[in-house]
């Protein structure tokens, strides 16, 4: 097992490197002089030269990449153009907001998705299944930025139940208050994972119910509860993988939703960075989010064999 984890850890290094290369190359795609993107418009010649040297922009591209990578590895993601503060600290604040939101949304998506999935999978073909499946496919198909607006119209404008914008004000808002502000964006974000988890759990449960070993269990007098346990244990590893990937998508997919709700996370920041063409901030945020996704996949890959004896762990 230790060997498996080690192997998986080592394997994620080239992926992480490739991700960094892609992030680096991405910025090279930007039209115009890279320097003009890094520096404010009214930069002096001294500033230009200094920056050039600092980022190694006078060197060929591969060397520039190594320079850049070296800076990243020492925690220097550059300086945000719009705020003038280090990119890393900007990201640090925003990412905690995004994580909280993605966490709550995953929880909603998971609980609803697994429940719906089991209910539909057990009753495949019945009206219950059809209703649940309709909800699930709507969750997958709904443009979440629009769903956010609709929820605001219903719960903020009409019912006045939840706040429509931003995070809880004040330095140390209470838990409950924070939760009230997170409610609508989290529900909005949860629609997609709810749909996907429901659909995959439903398919999984239905497939497992048709397996010979379930028939064999019935033939040994297993009660419905026994069978439920067997199905749950069989479905768990796949469900976990689906959920892991969805959580990663939530972190990134929140860009649009955070914009709708003005939630001060990475998404809103990214949006701002794009509009102001704050390339260092943009690049840094994308890199951090992608690396987060890589780590998440790594965790799924490591936990999955623990749940699933079928996957060989050598």
């Amino acid at each position, binding site marked *: 097992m230790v060997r498996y984890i080690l192997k998986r850890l080592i394997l994620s290094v080239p*992926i*992480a490197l*490739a*991700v960094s290369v*892609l992030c680096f190359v*991405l*910025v090279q*795609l*930007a*039209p115009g002089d890279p320097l003009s993107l890094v520096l404010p418009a009214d930069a002096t010649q001294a500033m230009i030269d200094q920056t050039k040297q600092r980022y190694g922009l006078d060197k060929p591209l591969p060397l520039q990449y190594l320079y850049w990578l070296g800076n990243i590895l020492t925690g220097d993601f550059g300086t945000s153009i719009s705020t003038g503060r280090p990119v890393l600290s900007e990201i640090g604040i925003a990412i905690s907001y995004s994580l909280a939101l993605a966490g709550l949304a995953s929880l909603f998506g998971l609980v609803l998705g697994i429940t719906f999935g089991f209910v539909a999978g057990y009753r495949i073909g019945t009206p219950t299944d059809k209703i649940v499946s309709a909800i699930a*496919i*709507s969750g*997958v*198909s*709904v*443009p*979440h*930025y*629009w*769903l956010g*607006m*609709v929820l*605001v*119209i219903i719960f903020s*404008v*009409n019912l006045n139940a939840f706040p429509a914008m931003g995070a809880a004000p004040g330095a140390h808002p209470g838990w409950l208050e924070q939760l009230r502000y997170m409610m609508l964006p989290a529900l909005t974000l949860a629609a997609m994972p709810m749909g996907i988890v429901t659909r995959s759990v439903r398919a999984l449960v239905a497939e497992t119910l048709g397996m010979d070993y379930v028939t064999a269990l019935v033939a040994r007098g297993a009660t419905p509860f026994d069978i439920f346990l067997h199905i749950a244990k069989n479905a768990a590893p796949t469900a976990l993988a689906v959920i892991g990937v969805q959580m*990663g*998508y939530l*972190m*990134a*997919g929140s*860009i*649009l939703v955070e*914009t*709708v709700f003005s939630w001060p996370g990475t998404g809103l920041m*990214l*949006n701002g*960075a*794009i*509009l102001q063409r704050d*390339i260092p901030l*943009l690049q840094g945020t*994308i890199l951090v*989010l*992608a690396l987060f*996704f*890589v780590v998440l*996949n790594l965790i799924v890959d490591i936990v999955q064999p623990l749940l699933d004896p079928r996957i060989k762990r050598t």
Partner: protein
Amino acid sequence: MTLAFDPPVARASLGYWAGVSRRLRRDTVSMVCLVVLLLIIAAAICAPLIAPYDPSVGSVVRRLRPVGTPGHLLGTDDLGRDMLTRLLYGARLSLIMGIVPVCIALVIGGSLGMLAGFVGGRVNTVVMRTADVFFAFPSVLLAIAIAGILGAGVVNSIVALTIVLIPPLVRVSESATAQVSALDFVEAARASGARDTTILRVHVLSNILGPVLVYTTSLFSVAVILASGLSFIGLGAKPPTPEWGLMLNNLRNAIYSQPLVAALPGVLIFVVSLSFNLLADGLRSAMDVR
């Protein structure tokens, strides 16, 4: 071998695709979705003929009229332009930005995946590991990043979406191809001395078309949402061009005064995306024979 006569052609039974289309036609949900999509596409094409107003001309005195206003069936927007007109015209760009990237990605990703799945070995490693790197980015993030860096614009959005959609298509077509290639009939074809290109054309393509088509249909749904999403945050279409995502963003402040009007463009995105997804489901079950 000489032949004195052309042998009679035997009674052909229902082919696979004929069967699929027959089962699909019996599925009410799929048929409704297909009709809805065709209607929307037709409306987009015929927008200049059926739209009651000019999409870019508004009137300050008629701003934000509610749905059902005489003369403005679906109300007016914040600049007093007719919503129905703008929704009709908006369909053009929204659909193009959603559909075109999928089609380009299908051609590129589909062939790359087929190649990787059929040839295997080193080619497979190179193609699939490259795709894996793209999979390390959540698709929304990647699309926004590319579009954000290239700068706002319809063409840039299409480029960004195409890049994002290629890897999943590579993966789907690779796995379908690898599965089919492992079957005995491919080996039998090889044993008859057929060249790889012939085997790909006759035996592989016909068998992977189904799963790839189903996946592509569901990708249309994703792409339409993503494309309008790019416009929604200002990376796609630029005002005053009518586009659903952009219209949705422009009307964000109108949710307090005219919530129904403000939500309209989103309804259309939802309907299109839902129709594609339901159609994909219908296709999947229509193709599922034993």
